[in-house]
């Protein structure tokens, strides 16, 4: 409400349209890869700016924090058949889904 509009996600998306629709066709073919990488970076930043906060919830569910969680997995404390297996698997799914939503939505079957 206090920030000036259009907000950053809109600005980024609009800049990306200009890049792909106006600049890319005007540039030599040798620059196409670089333009597509810039467009990809803008797309990641756009999705990150629009994503609701998720890290605090994930950390609250992770007893001892990420290092302890990773070490416990390595030690086999969340292997199939253990009491914490399903919960750990669900937590990993939630974290990874949130990370993919920003970085790699195609992995989730989203364009």
């Amino acid at each position, binding site marked *: 409400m206090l920030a000036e509009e259009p907000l950053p996600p809109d600005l980024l998306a609009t800049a990306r349209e200009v890049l792909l629709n106006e600049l890319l066709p005007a540039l030599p073919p040798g620059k196409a890869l670089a333009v597509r990488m*810039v467009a990809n970076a803008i797309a990641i930043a756009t999705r990150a700016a629009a994503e609701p906060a998720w890290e605090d919830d994930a950390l609250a569910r992770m007893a001892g924090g990420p290092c302890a969680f990773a070490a416990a997995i390595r030690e086999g404390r969340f292997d199939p058949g253990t009491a914490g297996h399903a919960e750990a698997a669900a937590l990993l799914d939630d974290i*990874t*889904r949130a*990370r993919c939503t*920003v970085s790699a939505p195609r*992995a989730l079957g989203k364009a």
Partner: protein
Amino acid sequence: MDEARRARLTAWLRAASGDAALAIEGMALLSGGAIQQNWALDVSGGRAWVLRTDNAATLAVSHGRAQEFALLRAAHAAGVTVPEPLFLCGDAGVTGAPFFVMRRVAGTAAAHRVVRSDTLGGGREACVRALGRELARIHAITPPRAALAFLGEPPADPCGAFVADQRAALDRQRTPRPALEWGLRHLERTAPPPVPPVLVHNDFRTGNIMLDDHGVTAVLDWEFSVWSDPHADLGWLCAKCWRFGNDAQEAGGIGPRAALYDGYGQVEDARVRWWELAAHVRWASIAVDQAERHISGVERNLELALTGHMVPGLEWEILRMVEARDAR
């Protein structure tokens, strides 16, 4: 490359080739290679060569040029389709970094083009069958080999060694990677029994294999080779993360898995599947390392930065593969 370097290179090539009249008629930087630079050399007498040298920053896990040259020679002698290795220069004083020269080979390796083509490599089935034969020739190279001593002692248990190496790599990283740990723990729980190690190319995938309309013209990029389980190469090639979006063609996005296996000979499918999961973990770890080169300032580069953002997608695939394998 500036004039002084080019003059030093000409003198060096004259001595190495025994041709005192040798002249470099053309020199152009070829595309590709985050780690190496490849220069196309047009040399007098109609000779078409490639000079391969290091980029500014190199990955700690990759071999140097002298080692890659030795691997190329071993592969060439074993009948693997590789560019013929010609000369090695370990003296950084000539061009600024060690380099080697090999014969230039025609064809394309561009992954997105390769997976879209129904004709490259002689057609999809013929191509992956030929790739199977190439792998079988590579895997006929077995330890010990004096010229490949730099590869170190062959592991008694290649699968166990893989898990240990990947954990050591994770321990070197700045942040914990619980999803990769999840994959590694599954690999540890389900590791198949040891097999005698052979030479594994370790980056045998679409993008590193040069093709023309008739077949395979070159297996490239030998810098990650190790003594390991031969199924590691089959798993790396078949891993979904290396199909470049053409998931239905399970052998590298190029052709059917059955034709690859058929060309290879005897394949233990369950072992290949283990290495496919392993491939996702290893590629994720390499991607983290590449992004780290950007983040740390060693090499500020947009491609490296974006590679880091491939990690979550690889982690998602690892979680799905582990879930499916545990449900069997």
